[in-house]
């Protein structure tokens, strides 16, 4: 199998001793036409890998911010097919930045595993993270993903045991997404000390697999605090909130996205440099 965009991205960053910035946005929010410009702007602002949320009617692992964005996107009719179309459009101008779809299983089941993987591959998706598909239920979809050279990104959480981490580590491809807290996306109870300790155990269990940390990272300070602990930092709810606020003020969400990414990028790079010195 050739080296995919995700692997290539982490290899390059490792060589440069930098951490990956992974912004998450919900497709179709704050507007259907704005998603592709937002993705492009995030890359301009310094994002390394993009996570694009597939709106779902019942996002049970998400907090109020991403629930709200999902509801708004669905009102505009943005579902899985529309999201894949957005990825195709994004790929017309960017064939380098890896992109991961994040969402829930039912839309994928409804389309059918094989058809979904074929369409995702054709659109230029690199990896898929299905929030409500743990290791034990992942087998059938993972096989289809693999057949299309798509990475199957999975979650680990503070409640995940060491034995289970090792099993997950063997099945994940692309990167492992470590959920830094017990809670939904956008929670406020992030405790850096506890995460630091937990991540050492995670690292010991998964070997060289790239490790992204996310959930509850609100700002540059949070990014800087968590940057040394993994290979990548995911920022979702804070960005989604920021874009929605920009849209409400009549400002350009794409410009906000670029500014947001730039700020996070600076915090990440400065934290990486401090770690070096």
């Amino acid at each position, binding site marked *: 199998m050739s080296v995919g965009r995700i692997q290539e991205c982490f290899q390059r960053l490792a060589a440069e001793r930098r951490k990956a910035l992974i912004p998450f946005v919900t497709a179709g929010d704050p507007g259907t036409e704005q998603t592709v410009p937002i993705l492009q702007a995030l890359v301009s602002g310094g994002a390394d890998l993009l996570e694009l949320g597939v709106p779902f009617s*019942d996002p049970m692992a998400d907090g109020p911010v991403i*629930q709200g964005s999902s509801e708004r996107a669905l009102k505009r009719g943005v579902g*899985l097919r529309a999201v894949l179309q957005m990825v195709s459009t994004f790929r017309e101008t960017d064939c380098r930045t890896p992109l991961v779809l994040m969402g829930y299983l039912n839309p994928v089941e409804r389309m059918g595993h094989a058809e979904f993987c074929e369409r995702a591959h054709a659109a230029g998706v690199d990896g898929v993270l299905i929030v409500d598909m743990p290791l*034990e*239920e992942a087998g059938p979809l993972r096989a289809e993903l693999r057949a299309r050279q798509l990475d199957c990104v999975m979650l680990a959480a503070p*409640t995940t045991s060491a034995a289970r981490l090792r099993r997950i580590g063997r099945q994940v491809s692309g990167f492992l997404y470590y959920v830094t807290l017990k809670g939904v996306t956008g929670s406020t109870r992030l405790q850096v000390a506890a995460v630091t300790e937990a991540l050492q155990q995670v690292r010991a269990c998964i070997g060289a697999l790239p490790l992204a940390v996310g959930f509850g990272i609100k700002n540059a300070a949070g990014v800087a605090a968590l940057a040394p602990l993994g290979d990548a930092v995911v920022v979702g709810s804070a960005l989604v909130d920021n874009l929605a606020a920009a849209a409400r003020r009549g400002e350009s969400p794409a410009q906000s996205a670029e500014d947001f990414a730039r700020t996070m990028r600076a915090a990440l790079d400065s934290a990486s440099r401090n770690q070096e010195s």
Partner: protein
Amino acid sequence: MPLHDSAAVAASGVPDASGHFGPYGGRFVAETLMAPLAELEAAWRRYLPDSEFQRELRDELRDFVGRPTPLYLAARWSRSLGGARIYLKREDLSHTGAHKINNTVGQALLAVRMGKRRIIAETGAGQHGVACAATAARHGLPCVVYMGEEDTRRQAPNVSRMRLLGAEIVTVNSGSRTLKDALNEALRDWVANVDETFYIIGSVAGPHPYPALVRDLQTVIGREAREQCLERLGRLPHALVACVGGGSNAIGLFHPFLEDRDVALYGVEAGGLGLDSGRHAAPLNSGAPGVLHGARSYLMSDADGQVLPTHSISAGLDYPGVGPEHAWLKDRCRVHYDVVEDAEAVEAFHALSRNEGILPALESSHALAYAARLARELGPEGIILVNLSGRGDKDLQNVLEAQAVPGAAA
């Protein structure tokens, strides 16, 4: 409708070790919940067969719930229908007014053994919420109940009852503001408070082990009913009828009869304003397999996989999914699933009230309406047993409103 010759279903053997009923069930949750579900499964496997646990559960069911519930011959109503004799399993006489409490007393005993200090629950009609609130009060545990805003309006008496029992009610304003959204919110609470919290799911739905655990706690209905039939009638009924939302009262009644191949089993979904209208809550009759709330089962979702809004006059049936074991029993043709619409359910509500002096819950009224149809088909020799899963006091406002609309309630 003939009594169908259904294949015997092995009562044991499902779910399998990973919580699957054939292709259904499973554990489709975010990673954070995998460990607490494994912990709950271990407790279920350890304590349910334990004789001390069973003794305590038996005492709770007798002294707190008031079991066994009676088997009642609805003689006047049966005569008025001119067909089979209809017996009612009087779950409406259980403490707090519905079968839901059979499950909550059992799960609360597990919670205590697991050292959990806080109870959370979702509720639709409010019957499960009230049962949880009562059970939590009895154990001195704080209880938080999630309830959709729409349901708090149409089931207002139950909201007051839960508050009086000391529970905190959290009104859910997301999505369709009904049971499915209450479940989402309860799952979010559980993820955030996973160490000390026990989530009492109220139906045979959700991730493994809930469908099996709730079934095991509700089969007391069917075990009693089977014994009562043999003792009183000297035989088993020709047919059993129960309403199906998530499906816990139906599984509870049906399960001990699955091997009795001569007993036809009928599950009744909410037909709402009619299957053609799209405004109903009948995933087994109109949906397709999908994944929601931790399990694969029949689900009402659109071509894009978004869960569809549902409608039923009865809040307890107003849910787009159904327990995975029902999906399995449907595919195996062991249970026949049909629908009854709002108006027919309301008509049955009135018929039972006036003929028998019993106000049935609108959920159970769906089963009653279907039994009325069956009674005419089976004729005077037939015996039908209906699970009267709850009492209707909570529904008075809805029934009166339905009557006020010309043509809405016959």
